[in-house]
């Protein structure tokens, strides 16, 4: 199901929001955006920042680089940066050293997300195009009883074909597996930053046979990977 598009960017009056719900949503989003901007400023320009924000509910959010407390202390003391003990310095230095790598990871992830979003748009366009051509691709609500019945029957035929094929592959697999041993079974990793390796085997939509040469990333121990 397609997501309803949002209202997009709209000009708003800079005055206290009247509707409580809107206010809370706005706070949540803008606070998040504010911290993001602060984070970027730190990365890009190597400056030290602290931001303290109270929520409408009275909770406090704070962002600080290198640390909220040290910036606050520095400001209030109005004297040069207070020296911490050596051990704390090391811990903090270690933490700070990991930041560039984290940024790289984040950038990577955001790029992939963008790519997938583009793919989503492409797929939507494809569907729209086919829907205008073929009546059976229209949403179910648009079909009449006769069409529905016809579609249902075709679907059930397809289901049978798929089941037959699946069973065939299963028996083929068990045959080859019993011969070579179950040495290619790998668990599908989920979550974590390595997720991008988990993408499902690309499905070839055209009826070309090149899909058969795709080594499945699921590692079910098919014949492919063994030859």
């Amino acid at each position: 199901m397609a997501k309803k598009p949002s209202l997009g960017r709209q000009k708003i009056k800079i005055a206290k929001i009247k509707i409580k719900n809107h206010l809370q949503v706005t706070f949540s989003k803008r606070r998040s955006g504010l911290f993001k901007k602060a984070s970027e400023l730190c990365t890009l320009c190597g400056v030290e920042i602290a931001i303290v924000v109270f929520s409408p509910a009275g909770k406090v959010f704070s962002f600080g680089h290198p640390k909220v407390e040290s910036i606050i202390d520095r400001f209030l003391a109005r004297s040069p940066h207070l020296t911490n003990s050596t051990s704390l310095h090391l811990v903090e230095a270690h933490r700070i050293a990991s930041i560039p790598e984290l940024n790289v990871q984040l950038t990577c992830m955001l790029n992939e997300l963008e790519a997938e979003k583009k793919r989503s748009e492409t797929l939507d366009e494809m569907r729209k195009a086919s829907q205008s051509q073929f009546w059976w691709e229209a949403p179910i609500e648009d079909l009449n009883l006769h069409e529905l019945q016809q579609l249902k029957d075709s679907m059930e035929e397809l289901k049978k074909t798929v089941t037959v094929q699946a069973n065939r592959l299963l028996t083929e697999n068990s045959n080859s597996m019993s011969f070579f041993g179950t040495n290619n079974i790998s668990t599908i990793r989920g979550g974590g930053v390595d997720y991008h390796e988990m993408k499902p085997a690309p499905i070839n939509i055209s009826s070309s046979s090149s899909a058969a040469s795709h080594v499945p990333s699921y590692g079910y121990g098919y014949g492919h990977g063994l030859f």
Partner: protein
Amino acid sequence: MTRKKVKLAFIMNDSARKATFKKRKKGLMKKVNELSTLCGIDACAIIYSPYEAQPEVWPNNIGVQRVLAQFKRMPEMEQSKKMVNQESFIRQRITKANEHLKKQIKENREKEMTEVMYQCLTGKGSIANLILPDLNDLGGLVDQTIKDISRRIESLKKAAASKSVAAPPPPPLSPRPQQVTVGGSGSNSTNHDMMTRGLMMHTLEKRPVVDNMSGMGGMQRTQWFTDWMNNPSEQNLGLGPGYEMPQFVDNTNLVWPNHFFP
């Protein structure tokens, strides 16, 4: 306002870095201001840079001190609960981005699978090339689609039934409970009427397409009729099979073999 994508790394070029700092610092202060005004909350910002001896602040020195005092009055736990630094914040962003990515990939896979399903339906795509996990997902999708279609068929039949039940007494002009019921299902029945008309249009348009589908087998159509006749839910009409059908069949002479309706 440039819309070039900026690499998320320290800007090596001194003048570029300084320029970026000035712009972004200004923007950041504006954002804090807006947040505070729009949501009616207290906030402060402190920025130490190599370019100024004194920190740049929002709203002003007194304002910052006030907010910081407020902050320090809070219990330690409350202070640190929502406290982040660069490292933890970026980690949070990575986690969120990962979740979005997973969701999007899943969504895309479903869309792709739908394409495959429709292509296989018309014989344009072949399932011979699919690997087992994809095949399983395809099967699942087909099952789900069949379920949705069946549900829709049931609700349409119910609507047809309620229409036929409500129709006999001609509804008086003044609204009455029965009228309301008719009105209630009326939306369905209007739909039903439209569908009937639509079908006549559809079949005309769809002619070549239907012939395509017949590639599935002429046996298919006969199967359909036998199934339909035997379908117990049809009995809900209470009038036996074939009651509604004449409306459907009226201007269509191509899908159903004529011998079926005497």
